């Protein structure tokens, strides 16, 4: 069962799942039997707003760490996210076509974006943040956002 780090900023509560790694944009990456499932953090989905559309690179696409892998469109913004792993996309969440709001409803679970077959996950992982480091970064960003309110 996934455990979370949690913090409150203003009226918002943000959670960070502790069983995965994160890139600087808030894309999480979780190793599962040699594959890497990816998605967006709770902070990213709350800050971005309700997702209207999510476009993910298709199954079979080859990516290098840092390549664009997904674009989401919300009422507020269009944001491109980069891949936290080098490899090939082997699965895309079908919910992203009909019900991309899954990103908002369950960012660490049903709202996952894609599964990547990594070329060298061990090498990629050292460039990602562990949950505590991302939590600290996220909290700093959230505090800065709150000051703008």
């Amino acid at each position, binding site marked *: 069962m996934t455990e979370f780090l949690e913090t409150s900023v203003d009226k918002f509560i943000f959670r960070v799942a502790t069983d995965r790694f994160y890139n600087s944009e808030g894309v999480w990456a979780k190793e599962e039997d040699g594959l890497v499932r990816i998605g967006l953090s709770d902070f990213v989905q709350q800050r971005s707003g*309700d997702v*209207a*559309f999510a476009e993910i690179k298709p199954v079979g696409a080859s990516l290098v760490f840092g390549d664009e892998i997904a674009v989401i469109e919300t*009422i507020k913004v269009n944001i491109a996210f980069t891949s936290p792993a080098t490899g090939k996309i082997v699965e895309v969440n079908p919910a992203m076509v009909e019900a991309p*709001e899954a990103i*908002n409803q369950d960012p660490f679970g049903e709202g996952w974006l894609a599964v990547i077959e990594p070329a060298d996950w061990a090498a990629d992982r050292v460039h990602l943040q562990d949950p505590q480091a991302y939590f600290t970064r996220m909290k700093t960003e959230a505090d800065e956002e709150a000051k703008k309110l």
Partner: protein
Amino acid sequence: MSENNQKVVIVPCSGIGKTYGTVSREAAYELIEELRPETAQLVPLSLLVLGDAAARQAVANSPTITIDGCKLACATKMVQESGGKVAQDFAVLDVYRRYRQFKPQGIAELNEGGEQLARALAEEAAQVVDKLTAEGEQNG
């Protein structure tokens, strides 16, 4: 359905400062002022929140369409809590997914995309108003 209290009730989102909330209200105004003034009436969500007797009676006695600006679905929930039955609920986000070419922006004043989205939403709701009106007439 020509009596005022028998008109289909439209309850839009009351969210201020959000684009989707503005789209919901603009769609409601378009519907009751331009498209179906004879068969649709607006009940402000704020009156339901305040427990206004006339507003509660309207949603309790007439078929009601809600237009929610976000997933909180305040309009739908408040109609239900006021004793009304929601005949059809629209969510602006879902409507936008059907009309991606109309990207809404702006808050106090919508951009052209927002106005077009509100119009498209109003037209969809007008079809529901017609259906509910016809059903009301059939049921006497």
